[in-house]
């Protein structure tokens, strides 16, 4: 599949939700397919907490995109028909401006001083991106988890710039339990002796072990109990493929491996920033979800998964109820989803069909 990766520069910067200003910033984007003449076939994908702009296909490092099961030629989001855009979120560590970027005023990496970004800021920056790359409106904005929050916020903030929103495995705000779990992850990073109060880059170290523990915990929350049972059971890891001699069970080996890999590539300050953005998001901050959705004009497709205990399907239903109160053309579907919270990433016959039919309807 043909794709283009591009760094888009916003020299005028933007004023953030918090009132802070980013004097300038860059967004790393990846695009698939072609924008048609009337500009009616553009789709924006919003990534979840640890995702990036690489949504589909194999990139030059042979990495497969985070939504490759759903996005591609002849897939649910068909890149033969649609011009699909995905950007690395501001504050992330996939190439867009974030804590590892050089701060123009200090000429050192921002580190912990990168301003706190909100879900709304992401959506505002994506709107600036839309204007910059000449997309007149999005036929669809879609994402799962934190990406679903962005899709919802798009529908609320820019009702005239979006025809459809796909909100998958998401909620209009994070639950108490979501915040609690994120705080344990952040604590493990902060208490890593290499964290240096967020200034680890200046010390030429990274809080690897904290990041690793955070990711291991995260992984448990993304999977369902049933999936862990069926995938690992109580099987012992064979001696030859142990990542560590301390490991007994396969599930331990898996978490160790995943955590280790993540800790080599993800930035700790980004981790804290992204989870804070997730925890802080409340659709319709001051006025409540129902009133916030008053001006929504787009069609909504809300999908939840029975096996998802992190953002359980009832959370999606809250959005559906608010949509119905506002006479919005909105559908709410619950699917089995074998992968717990991560189910939104994987194709199933029902999931793919529902998405493609929603796009085409």
């Amino acid at each position, binding site marked *: 599949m043909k794709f283009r990766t591009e760094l888009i520069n916003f020299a005028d910067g933007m004023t953030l939700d918090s009132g802070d200003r980013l004097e300038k910033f860059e967004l790393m984007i990846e695009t698939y397919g072609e924008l048609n003449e009337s500009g009616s076939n553009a789709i924006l994908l919003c990534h979840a907490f640890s995702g990036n702009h690489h949504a589909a296909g194999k990139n030059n490092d042979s990495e497969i995109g985070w939504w490759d099961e759903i996005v591609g030629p002849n897939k649910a989001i068909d890149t033969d028909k649609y011009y699909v855009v995905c950007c690395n979120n501001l504050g992330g560590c996939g190439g867009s401006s974030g804590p590892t970027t050089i701060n123009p005023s200090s000429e050192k990496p921002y580190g912990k001083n990168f301003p706190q970004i909100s879900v709304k800021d992401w959506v505002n920056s994506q709107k600036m991106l839309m204007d910059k790359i000449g997309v007149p409106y999005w036929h669809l904005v879609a994402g799962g988890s934190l990406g679903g929050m962005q899709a919802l916020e798009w529908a609320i903030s820019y009702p005239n710039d979006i025809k459809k929103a796909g909100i998958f495995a998401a909620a209009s705000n994070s639950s108490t339990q979501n915040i609690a779990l994120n705080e344990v992850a952040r604590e493990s990073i902060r208490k890593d002796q290499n964290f240096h109060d967020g200034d680890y880059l200046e010390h030429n170290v990274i809080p690897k072990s904290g990041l690793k523990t955070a990711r291991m915990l995260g992984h448990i929350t993304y999977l369902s109990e049933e999936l862990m049972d069926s995938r690992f059971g109580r099987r012992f890891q064979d001696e030859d493929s142990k990542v560590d001699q301390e490991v007994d069970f396969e599930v331990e080996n898996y978490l160790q491996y995943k955590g280790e890999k993540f800790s080599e590539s993800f930035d700790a300050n980004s981790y804290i920033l992204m989870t804070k953005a997730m925890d802080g998001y409340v659709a319709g901050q001051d006025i409540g979800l129902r009133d916030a959705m008053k001006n929504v004009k787009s*069609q909504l*497709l809300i999908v939840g998964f029975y096996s998802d205990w992190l953002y359980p399907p009832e959370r999606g239903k809250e959005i*559906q*109820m608010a949509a*119905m*109160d506002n*006479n919005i*053309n*909105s*559908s*709410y*579907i*619950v*699917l089995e989803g074998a992968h717990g919270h991560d189910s939104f990433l994987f194709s199933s016959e*029902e999931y793919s*069909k*529902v998405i493609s*039919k*929603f796009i*085409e*309807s």
Partner: protein
Amino acid sequence: MAIKLSKIINNWVPDDSKVIDFGCGDGSLLKELMDTKKVLGYGVEINDTKIQKCIAKGVPVIKQDIDLGINEFESSNFDLSIMARSIQCLKNPANALKGMLKLSKRCVVTLPNLGYWRCRLNILSGEMPVTPELPSSWYETENIHLCTIKDFEKLCIDENIKIKDKVFLNKKGDQSKFVSIKPNLLAVEGVYLLEK
């Protein structure tokens, strides 16, 4: 079926009204009402294949088991709720009826008539009815609360539900004057407009 039924219901549905259809199937009834009456319609359905058909038609749909809740839709201010050929499948039809009339002032209910003469013949011969309208055997049918026209109207009286209008259908699914002479014996299906 959807088109015939929508013709009857059309007279009962004001333009631009907000409608919820419990057990909406593939969404064709709602689609018809959306096209002809510009209604804002929501379907409630449990079957994934039927849900996909709703989505393909652009009919908003909610995946839900009707037995588990109707009340939660109360805040949406519906003008009309519909339950076509589904009430006999519910665990508690009386509660469902009351629930529908809480969330909308009016509701449309259609039900297969167990008093239809063919059903009576089946029972007279000592067997549970199996007819084109009720094709499943007793051990595999979803129809756990079948009733006659007479039974249903008695329930409405007991529950203080007003029957604003009613139409009786013959085996072709058409409105029929002949059938209306003795609906409990001759009608295959009853279509009711109910009000609190």
